[in-house]
């Protein structure tokens, strides 16, 4: 089938035409008026502007928490963001509910109404489209933080419109996250087109000197395996966004539990971003900071003590790595949407760690870390170069072909177009290695390295590592181990 998508900026006229369609999806679309929105954005204080907040944090040598939050009833949401903000959290994420994300706005409306009627939330996030701009500005104005809403493909364009008009100043534009974890049927082209729309919208603001940041999450890491595909796809997302006019991108390092590997990734990822942004001519795109993230989608420990262990551990690695912000979950993660109290206690524990560790500027450098950096760099470079090659220099075309060919691939993906052939396990020190490379274009000597590490563990444990071992490792963290054991299967 012919590939139509191109790495090319959408014409302003065409874009304005497209907007009409987007805004007509729900009646609150009428509340979005671009010139007014630009004016509103310009009136915001620095403390509400994502990239400025991050830059300030970085200058002050501090590190902040970047949590999650979202609940349907406006008053509750206001209370939640205020209490987060009072804990010293200046970056406020904004989770929309799953009906909203899938443009099932009638259902979102019903859920919202039932939540209001019973006083108990039945939606798993804030239905931003149903609430609309006027209401959502109240939330944004309720506290002194920079907002970053979350969505997936279906509603991404309209959510972006409402969010920016409401004064939010960052938003992920991670179409690979949709492929990995949010959208079952969309084609890669459809995903890229949706991302191009949001990029173009942010570009429209940028043309008018309003800088909105895009955080790049990449292909969601649904298991225990190296982050090279995740990082390569983050960079592709950054490049696609940059072409549309995005001027500020924010890398996310997924902290998987091996300190050597995580610290290696923290150090190499911003360099790789810079390299490819510059290589493809986006020299004026800034990287205001980096976020460490407890995102690797491992199941969380169910008991409170172990949950605190995992949260503070992630916070420690992030602080040792000197990232600017870190996203940690809450002690309720395994059980349900966190209460306000769990948010507070969880974030207090992480904040304690950040402040105490970060002040010390402890230098950690060793051959293991340097080795992880070299490996990540070699893998990401090999993957990105192959993608560019597949697209004859066009990263959008290359991305479509790469997914089709399994050159970009990740296990347990939701999207039916993903190959789902890759698999990973931990080595004896807990670093994630490829057990099955699928069709990833990993250089042969690096493949050999993975095989050796796996052979080492197989020898030590006297068994073959396979799909079941991979699952054992996947559950390990929830059971208080890094490396899984047979008992976990």
């Amino acid at each position, binding site marked *: 089938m012919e590939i139509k998508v191109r790495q090319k900026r959408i014409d302003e006229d065409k874009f304005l035409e497209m907007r009409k369609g987007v805004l007509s999806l729900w009646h609150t679309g009428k509340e979005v008026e671009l010139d007014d929105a630009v004016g509103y954005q310009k009136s915001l204080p620095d403390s509400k502007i994502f990239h400025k907040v991050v830059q300030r944090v970085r200058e002050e040598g501090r590190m902040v928490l970047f949590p999650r939050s979202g609940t349907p009833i406006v008053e509750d949401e206001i209370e939640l963001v205020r209490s987060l903000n009072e804990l010293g959290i200046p970056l406020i994420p904004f989770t929309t509910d799953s009906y909203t994300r899938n443009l099932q706005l009638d259902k979102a409306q019903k859920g919202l109404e039932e939540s209001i009627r019973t006083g108990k939330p039945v939606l798993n996030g804030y239905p931003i489209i149903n609430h609309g701009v006027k209401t959502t500005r109240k939330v944004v104005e309720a506290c002194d933080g920079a907002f970053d809403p979350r969505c997936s493909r279906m509603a991404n364009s309209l959510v972006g419109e409402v969010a920016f008009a409401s004064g939010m100043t960052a938003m992920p534009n991670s179409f690979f996250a949709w492929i990995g974890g949010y959208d079952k049927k969309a084609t890669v082209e459809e995903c890229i087109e949706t991302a191009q729309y949001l990029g173009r919208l942010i570009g429209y603001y940028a043309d008018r000197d309003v800088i909105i940041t895009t955080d790049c999450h990449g292909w969601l890491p649904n298991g225990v395996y190296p982050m090279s595909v995740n990082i390569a796809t983050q960079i592709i997302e950054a490049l696609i966004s940059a072409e549309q006019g995005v001027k500020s991108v924010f890398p996310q390092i997924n902290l998987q539990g091996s300190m050597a590997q995580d610290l290696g990734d923290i150090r190499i990822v911003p360099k790789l971003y810079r390299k490819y942004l510059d290589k493809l001519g986006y020299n004026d795109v800034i990287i205001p900071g980096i976020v460490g993230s407890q995102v690797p989608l491992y199941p969380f420990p*169910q008991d409170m003590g172990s949950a605190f262990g995992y949260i503070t551990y992630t916070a420690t690695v992030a602080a040792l790595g000197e990232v600017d912000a870190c996203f940690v979950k809450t002690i309720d993660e395994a059980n349900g949407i966190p209460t306000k109290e769990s948010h507070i206690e969880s974030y207090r524990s992480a904040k304690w760690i950040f402040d105490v560790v970060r002040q010390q500027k402890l230098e950690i450098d060793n051959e293991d870390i340097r080795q992880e950096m070299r490996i990540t760099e070699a893998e990401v470079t090999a993957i990105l170069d192959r993608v560019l090659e597949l697209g004859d220099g066009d990263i959008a075309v290359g991305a479509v072909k790469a997914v089709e060919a399994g050159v970009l691939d990740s296990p*347990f993906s939701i999207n039916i177009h993903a190959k789902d052939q890759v698999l990973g396990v931990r080595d004896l020190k807990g670093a994630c290695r490829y057990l099955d490379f699928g069709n990833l274009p990993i250089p042969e000597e690096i493949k050999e390295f993975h095989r050796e590490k796996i052979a080492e563990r197989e020898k030590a444990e006297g068994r073959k590592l396979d799909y079941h071992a991979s699952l054992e490792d996947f559950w390990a963290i929830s059971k208080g181990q890094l490396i899984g054991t047979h008992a976990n299967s």
Partner: protein
Amino acid sequence: MKDITVITGTVGVDAHVIGTKIVSRALRDAGYNVVALGAQTPPEEFIKAAQETDADAMIMSSLYGMAELDLQGFKDKCLEAGLDDILLYIGGNLGIAKSDDIEMRFKKLGFDRVYPPATDMKIALADLQNDLEAKGKL
């Protein structure tokens, strides 16, 4: 084992696909005939697949907390579709927050068995075998 057909998937727009993929493979490895619908499957598709394959059980997952909204009237629709002998299992994070009455609420919705988060599949496999035996299907 006789040929037993089981439908799997997450219901509604729930995107949590990892669990249902693992569940499907565990069922297959245990010898079941599995129709894996994957994530984000509307309730109607579960019913359609069950009708078409004359399935014996549905092993439904929902993690995103909105299953109750998704499954209003589900049992009635099953009955209307002639699925009166099918086993209905559901597991995952079934409410927005942890709560004690979840099992009761889903039993009311017509489910035969309701499982808490992170249930070990070994338990579910044993239950399924028992229930199928009780129905004389095994």
